[in-house]
C-alpha cells in the first residue's frame, strides 16, 4: 500500500463539466426563480385566502350533485360524439396530408407546403383553433368537431408522413418495377408497411380527442366543457364536482380502451 496520505475530502465531479459552469447554472436557476416569481404579480393575500377557500370549495363540492343528470349525459354524449366523428374525419384527411408531407413521395413544393401546415397546426392549442371555428361556424358541437378533426388531421398526417419516410424502399421499388401506377404503388408498396402503426396512432388519437372534447366547450365549441365552465361561473360547485368526476371517468375509460385495443393489435 502506498504511503502517501489519502485525501480526506472528495466532491463528486460537477454535472455540467467544470465547477465554475456548475455554479453558473445554479446561479442562473436561482436568478430565474427570483425574477419570475417577482414579476408574476401574484396576489399573496388572495393566494393565502385560497387555502381557506379550497376547504370551503371542497365542502360545497361534496356530495357531488347528479340530480341534473340529463344535462350531464347530454354534454358527455356530445363530447364523445365529437371525439369519434373528428377522429374519423381526421383519419381520412390525414392520408393526403401525410402523403404530401412525405419527402420520398412528394414533389418539393407540395412537401414544403404540407410541412408548413403541419408546423403551424401543431403549434396552436386546440382551444385556440376552436375559437376560430366558433367564429366561422357559430357556437355548438360543429365547431368542436372541426377543431378536433383539424388537430387530428395534423397529428395523424405528421405521424403518417414520418412512417412513410421510414419505410423500406425495396418493396416500393419492386412494385414500381412491375409497372404499377402511383396509386397501386401506394396500396401495395407503402400501405402494408405503415397500416398497423397508423391504426395504433389513430386509436391513440381517439383517446386524445376524448380528452380535448371535454375542454373545447369552454370557448363555446360544444360538449361537456361548456356545462362545466358555466357551473363554475354560477358557483354551482356540487354540479361541477359531478361533471369533473364524469370527465375523469370518461377520460380514464378512453385511455383504458386505447391501451386495450393497441395491446390486442400487437
Amino acid at each position, binding site marked *: 500500500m502506498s504511503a502517501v496520505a489519502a485525501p480526506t475530502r472528495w466532491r463528486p465531479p460537477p454535472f455540467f463539466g467544470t465547477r465554475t459552469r456548475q455554479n453558473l447554472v445554479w446561479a442562473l436557476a436561482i436568478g430565474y426563480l427570483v425574477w419570475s416569481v417577482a*414579476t408574476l404579480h401574484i*396576489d399573496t393575500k388572495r393566494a393565502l*385566502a*385560497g387555502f381557506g377557500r379550497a376547504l370551503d370549495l371542497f365542502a360545497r363540492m361534496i356530495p357531488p350533485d347528479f340530480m341534473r343528470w340529463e344535462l350531464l349525459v347530454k354534454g358527455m354524449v*356530445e363530447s364523445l*360524439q365529437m371525439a369519434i366523428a373528428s377522429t*374519423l374525419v381526421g383519419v381520412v384527411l390525414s392520408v393526403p396530408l401525410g402523403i404530401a408531407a412525405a419527402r420520398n413521395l412528394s414533389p418539393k413544393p407540395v412537401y414544403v407546403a404540407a410541412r408548413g401546415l403541419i408546423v403551424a397546426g401543431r403549434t396552436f392549442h386546440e382551444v385556440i383553433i376552436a375559437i376560430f371555428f366558433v367564429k366561422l361556424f357559430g357556437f355548438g358541437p360543429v365547431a368542436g368537431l372541426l377543431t378536433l378533426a383539424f388537430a387530428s388531421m395534423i397529428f395523424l398526417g405528421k405521424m403518417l408522413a414520418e412512417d412513410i419516410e421510414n419505410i423500406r424502399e425495396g418493396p416500393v421499388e419492386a412494385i414500381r418495377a412491375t409497372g404499377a401506377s402511383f396509386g397501386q404503388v401506394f396500396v401495395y408498396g407503402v400501405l402494408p408497411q405503415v397500416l398497423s402503426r397508423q391504426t395504433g396512432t389513430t386509436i391513440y388519437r381517439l383517446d386524445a380527442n376524448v380528452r380535448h372534447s371535454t*375542454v373545447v366547450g369552454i*370557448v363555446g365549441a360544444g360538449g361537456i366543457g361548456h356545462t362545466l365552465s358555466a357551473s363554475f361561473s354560477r358557483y354551482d360547485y356540487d354540479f361541477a364536482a359531478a361533471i369533473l368526476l364524469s370527465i*375523469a371517468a370518461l377520460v380514464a375509460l378512453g385511455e383504458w380502451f386505447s391501451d386495450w385495443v393497441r395491446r390486442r393489435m400487437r
Partner: protein
Amino acid sequence: MSSTVATRYPEVWRKRTPRESAIQWAWMVAVAVAAVWSVSALDIEWAFFLDAHEQAADLIDRMWPPSWSYLPVILEPLVETIHIATLGTAVALVLSVPIAFLAARNTAANGFTWAVGRAILVGSRSVNTIIWGLLFVAIFGPGPLAGILAVAARSVGFLAKLVAEAIEEADRGPIEAIEATGASTLQVYLVGVLPQVMPVLIGTTVYRWDINVRESSVLGFVGAGGIGLYLYASINQFAWQQVLVVLSAILLIVIASEAVSAWIRGRIS
C-alpha cells in the same frame, strides 16, 4: 397447357379466410355505425358550411396588416406564459418523484400506498390543464398562480407515470447490491434507483415543459394568467389585427420552446 394448370390448381384466391373476413367486416360495420351515430346526433347545421370559405377569407382579410404596435403590450404576458409553464413544470418535477416511488409496483411500501399513488396518477392525468385552471381560479382567484398550479397538477401525473414505469424497469442488480450494504430503504431508492431513472426523469420533464408552454398559451381563457387572456380579449373586441400579432407571438414561443426542448433531449441521450 393452361387447362391442366386450371384443373390442378384453384382459380380462386382470397387474401383472408372467411373468419378473418367476417372479423374485418365486423370492425368496418362498427366503425361505420360509430360514424353515423356520432355525426347524425350532432345536429349539424349544414348551411354554415356553404359560406364558411367566404367567412374565412373575410377573417384573414381583416387580420391584415397586423398591428405591430400591440406587440409591446403583450410582451409581459408572453413572458408570464413561459414563467407559468416553467414554474409549473418545476413544481411538478419535485412532486412527481415521491409519487412515482409510491406508484411503482416494486417500490411501493404496501398495497395501500400503491393504490394511493395510482389514484393520484389517474386523477392528475384525467383532468385537462385548462380544467385544472378553472378549479384553481375558483380557489386562488384569477392570475398566474392558478395557472402554475394547473400546469403542475396536470404534469405531476404525466411525469410520475413515466418515471414509475422506469422504476419498475430498473435493473435489480445494483438495487440488490445497495440493499446488501445495509442501507435504509430511502437510501436504496436514492443511490440504487434514482440514478437509473434520472435520464427518463430529465427527458420527460423537458418534454413536458414544451407541452406546457403550449398549454399555458390558453390558460388565460379561464383567467389563469398568461397570453391567453389577451388573445381572448382581442377576439371578443373583433380586433383581428391584434389577434394576428398575438398568434404570431404564440407561434414563436411554442416553436422556440420545442426547439430548446428537442436540443436538450438530444444532448441527454
